[in-house]
């Protein structure tokens, strides 16, 4: 700052002003009169000085720091105000940043591979995991057999490379040296997987096309996290032998730390292995060798300038041509469906959008709602700032009178707002961190190495910065507007007697806006909460309390099918003998665990259904105690017994939905049906009908299901593939332990007991069945909890906002109230007068808010269960809830205003 320049200016202005004064005196004015006349003729010297100084660069910088220091001093002087503003904003910005953290990682992030924008997938759906026929009703294909994938590869040289990845993920028991056997998640990929994605390895080498040939030495690539956790990060792992189930594999390399595969998942693969090794595990049941079994996604790398529409049409042609050669698609009316079948080429830079498809919609709604929260917070703070700037009008007027330019005052207000919003932005990072951690825990309660973290990335920091900037500018608007109209003359008046009421209108509008938005949040919260309640308290048809799911793998432990029966019997005996165990049973998979096996049902004596006929039913294989242990009743006929084994009559139990779909108006018991082909239509005899229960879809009705007994293998299949599939279904992957009362330390108990039977049987996970059931509602719970939090926040903010405005109005109207009371108004009349003022705004807010929340409800409809988006109860309840809160918020200041002593009220002026 050049003080010489300042002095010079000072001296010049003083000299000229004195001259003017002298001239006035020479005209005969008294010295005092001359002084004021000179000032009038000259104008405000401070203003002149300020105007000149503002054109100096150094002053500009200087004044910015001065504004900042002044603002900080002001804020320190009112710590209550500062704290409230910073906390309110931090919650608002933090909620948005937390949700953005997830949005960014889930929806905006690209795979950590080279040039992800050139990755494209054939298909835009996420069907899973094995299909044998047409996919979906609209003919949109995305899941392919290996044979079809090969056709794509040779027909589309447009792709630099085209890789295939398994749609579902499997698990293996992995043994390495003397370490205990571990269950790991694996994904089959084509040999060019890593080179297609452009991913190298952290150590060792990636898979190559030569690894993916029949007869090649079996190799795997481990994920970095798994290498660290289960292999101690030892470099000696590379080139060493690990056993998957009982097959020896060589570890070729370790994937880079950042690489989590081709999609975001709560359980990313622990290892990748070539497609060619699939028959090692599956034998005759191999999907790779079944030309029609669709189980792969195709993802490829395209050159920059390629006509994707033409390529898509070409690939659709390949699909249809291929179908024409497959009897399963052409027979029984399939032929006329083929022209409808097509593929869509979709960008795959973000990976396969499986999780995004499941959670993206909910996340977008949450983003919308968190924005609403931030708007409410802004409205509240704008209101606070308004009230504050009204209180400071005298100060402002004095500053204008002393020569502060308007630009200067507005800049100072802006500085203060921005300081507040950036303080809040900083605090909000903590809110965002814990917020997104909580959201992740709610959304994915069980996960391992999930590639999502609550740590703020540069993108998130930038987001928080921009949101802070935006909010700072937003809530500075109102006070800046007020102050820009400050008149020096106002300094001489008191606030109460001011005839002009600048703040009143914006304050009221902000309040209306707040109430409208609060109703939206409240009704959304109520809708989501009711939906969650309905989901959690629905009749799923199964009992889960005190039951534990144990994930076990006898196949991985090396048990041959012939040893299974005795092994399961021993496990059953040993566990049943434990204290507190009521029942023990086995199943291939458990209801509502996310797994599902289905088949087309062929009823004996009926024509074979065509490919588009609805013949689908789920099936499961269970032990004799299973139905009793999940509380499913036998409605008619009999349960399975120990006598239902290989060699005796193959039997099945069906649920009511099955009976009414396939045997309407008939007795299902005694009927025969089969799967896998018309020649097996007489395979199973129905011996009983059981109650319906939900298997995967918690929202829909129970679907047709048939059960087969654990130890009974159907020996009549005529091809080795079918017989191999039948044999592999003899392995039970789940054990269900039912206790007679709540228990502690189950996992250790299970592991110890199992180790005594055979330490080679690995146990992947022991989970309370209640938690598995609850896992079906993760998204709903997330939505409900977050909207509840948002709704509560909105309610508090709206109430505080109304309270503030009412208190302010009450103070402003003190003298009016005094006069009214002096003229004979009763206290209750005063209260109702005040409350009426509030009521108008609340009503206006509702008028806007209710249609807005109906709209929000319609957006949520597809996420809701057994409650409509326009559910009248919800709206009445949210209006009532808000009404009660604002009534209290309005009544307190109104009562206080009415209790004022009329004499004192009149004397305030």
């Amino acid at each position, binding site marked *: 700052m050049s003080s010489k320049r300042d002095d010079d200016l000072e001296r010049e202005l003083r000299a000229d002003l004195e001259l*003017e004064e002298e001239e006035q005196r020479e005209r005969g004015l008294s010295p005092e009169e001359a002084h004021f006349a000179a000032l009038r003729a000259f*104008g405000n010297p401070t203003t002149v000085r300020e105007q000149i100084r503002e*054109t100096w660069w150094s002053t500009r910088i200087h004044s910015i720091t001065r504004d900042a220091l002044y603002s900080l001093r002001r804020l320190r002087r009112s710590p209550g105000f500062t704290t409230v503003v910073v906390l309110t904003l931090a919650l608002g910005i933090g909620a948005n940043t937390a949700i953005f953290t997830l949005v960014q990682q889930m929806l905006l992030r690209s795979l950590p591979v080279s040039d992800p924008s050139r990755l494209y997938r054939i298909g835009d759906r996420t069907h899973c995991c094995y299909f044998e026929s047409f996919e979906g009703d609209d003919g949109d294909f995305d899941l392919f057999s290996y044979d079809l994938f090969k056709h794509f590869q040779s027909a589309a040289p447009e792709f630099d490379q085209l890789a295939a990845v398994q749609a579902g993920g499997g698990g293996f028991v992995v043994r390495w040296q003397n370490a205990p056997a571990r269950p790991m998640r694996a994904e089959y990929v084509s040999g060019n997987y890593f080179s297609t994605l452009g991913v190298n390895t952290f150590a060792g080498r990636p898979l190559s096309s030569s690894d993916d040939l029949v007869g090649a030495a079996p190799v795997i690539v481990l994920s970095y996290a798994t290498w660290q956790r289960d292999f101690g990060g030892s470099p000696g792992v590379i080139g060493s032998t690990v056993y998957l189930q009982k097959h020896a594999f060589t570890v070729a390399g370790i994937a880079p730390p950042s690489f989590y595969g081709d999609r975001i998942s709560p359980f990313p693969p622990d290892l990748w292995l070539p497609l060619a090794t699939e028959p090692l595990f599956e034998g005759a049941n191999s999907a790779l060798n079944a030309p029609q079994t669709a189980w792969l996604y195709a993802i490829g790398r395209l050159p920059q300038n390629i006509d994707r529409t033409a390529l898509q049409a070409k690939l659709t042609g390949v699909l249809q041509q291929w179908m024409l050669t497959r009897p399963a698609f052409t027979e029984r009316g399939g032929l006329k469906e083929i022209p409808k079948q097509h593929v869509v080429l979709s960008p795959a830079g973000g990976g396969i959008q499986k999780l995004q498809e499941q959670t993206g919609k909910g996340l977008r709604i949450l983003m919308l709602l968190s924005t609403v929260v931030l708007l409410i917070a802004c409205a509240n703070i704008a209101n606070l700032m308004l009230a504050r700037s009204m209180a400071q009008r005298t100060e402002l007027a004095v500053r204008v009178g002393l020569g502060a330019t308007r630009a200067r005052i507005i800049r100072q207000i802006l500085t203060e707002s921005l300081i507040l919003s950036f303080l809040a932005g900083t605090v909000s990072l903590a809110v965002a961190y814990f917020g997104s951690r909580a959201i992740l825990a709610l959304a994915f309660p069980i996960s391992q190495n999930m590639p999502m973290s609550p740590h703020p990335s540069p993108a998130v920091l930038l987001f928080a910065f921009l949101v802070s900037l935006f909010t700072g500018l937003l809530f500075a608007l109102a006070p800046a507007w007020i102050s820009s109209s400050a008149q020096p003359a106002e300094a001489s008046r008191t606030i109460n007697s001011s005839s002009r009421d600048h703040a009143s209108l914006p304050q009221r509008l902000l309040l209306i806006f707040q109430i409208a938005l609060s109703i939206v949040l409240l009704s959304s919260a109520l809708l989501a909460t009711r939906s969650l309640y309905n989901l959690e308290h629905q009749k799923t048809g199964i009992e889960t309390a005190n039951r534990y799911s144990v994930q076990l793998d006898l196949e991985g432990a090396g048990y041959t099918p012939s040893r299974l029966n005795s092994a399961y019997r021993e496990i059953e005996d040993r566990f049943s003998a434990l204290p507190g165990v009521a029942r023990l049973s086995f199943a291939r998979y458990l209801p509502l665990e996310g797994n599902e096996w289905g088949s087309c049902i062929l009823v004996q004596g009926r024509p074979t259904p065509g490919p588009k006929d609805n013949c689908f039913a789920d099936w499961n294989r269970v032990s004799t105690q299973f139905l009793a242990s999940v509380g499913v009743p036998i409605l008619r006929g009999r349960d399975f017994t120990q006598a239902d084994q290989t060699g005796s009559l193959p039997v099945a139990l069906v649920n009511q939905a099955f009976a009414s779909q396939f045997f309407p108006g008939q007795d299902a018991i005694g009927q025969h049906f089969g799967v896998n082909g018309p020649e097996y239509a007489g395979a199973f005899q129905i011996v009983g009908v059981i109650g319906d229960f939900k298997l995967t879809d918690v929202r829909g009705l129970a679907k047709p299901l048939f059960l087969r007994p654990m130890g009974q293998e159907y020996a009549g299949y005529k091809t080795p593939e079918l017989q191999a599939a039948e044999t592999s279904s003899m392995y039970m992957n789940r054990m269900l332990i039912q206790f007679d009362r709540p228990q502690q330390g189950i996992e250790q108990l299970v592991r110890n007991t199992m180790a005594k039977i055979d330490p080679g049987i690995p146990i992947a996970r022991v989970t309370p069945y209640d938690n598995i059931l609850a896992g079906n509602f993760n998204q709903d719970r997330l939505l409900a909890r977050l909207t509840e939090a948002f709704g509560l926040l909105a309610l508090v903010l709206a109430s505080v906002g109304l309270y503030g405005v009412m208190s302010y109005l009450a103070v402003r109207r003190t003298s009016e109230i005094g006069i009214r009371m002096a003229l004979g108004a009763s206290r209750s009349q005063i209260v109702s007068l005040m409350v009426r003022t509030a009521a108008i705004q609340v009503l206006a807010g509702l008028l806007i808010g209710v249609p807005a929340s109906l709209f929000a409800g319609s957006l949520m409809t597809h996420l809701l269960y057994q409650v409509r988006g326009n559910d009248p109860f919800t709206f009445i309840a949210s209006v009532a809830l808000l009404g009660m809160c604002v009534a209290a918020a309005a009544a307190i200041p109104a009562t206080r205003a009415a209790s004022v002593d009329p004499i004192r009220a009149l004397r305030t002026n």
Partner: protein
Amino acid sequence: MVEYLPSAFIEGRTSSMTKEQAKQRANLLQGTLDMLILRTLIYGPAHGHEIGKHIQRTTNDFLQMQHGSLYPALHRLERRGWVASKWETAPDRNREFKYYRLTDKGRKQLLAEESEWKQMVDAVSRVMWPTAEEN
């Protein structure tokens, strides 16, 4: 840096003049203040007070400005190099004032502004008093 001339630089202050009129007059004259100052300095160096007084007197008080408004303009002209300043003792008063004098650059600027203004006035009068022009 953006140069600007707020309309408040020249502002009427006679009570008969409404705020609106003053604003209009100021708008009309926006940008001409520089020219008026430069023209005033043709007669020789002057300090701010003298310049203000001169403009006011010459226009028969039509342009009554708060003298203070001149200074931002003077400082701006100085930074552009159109005027130069020096502290000198006034002949009639026994103390120093900051005297501004026209530089060569300022003289050129004045000529440019003057011809521009003439063209403007010419053009405006052709529209306003066409008959007088014909006669």
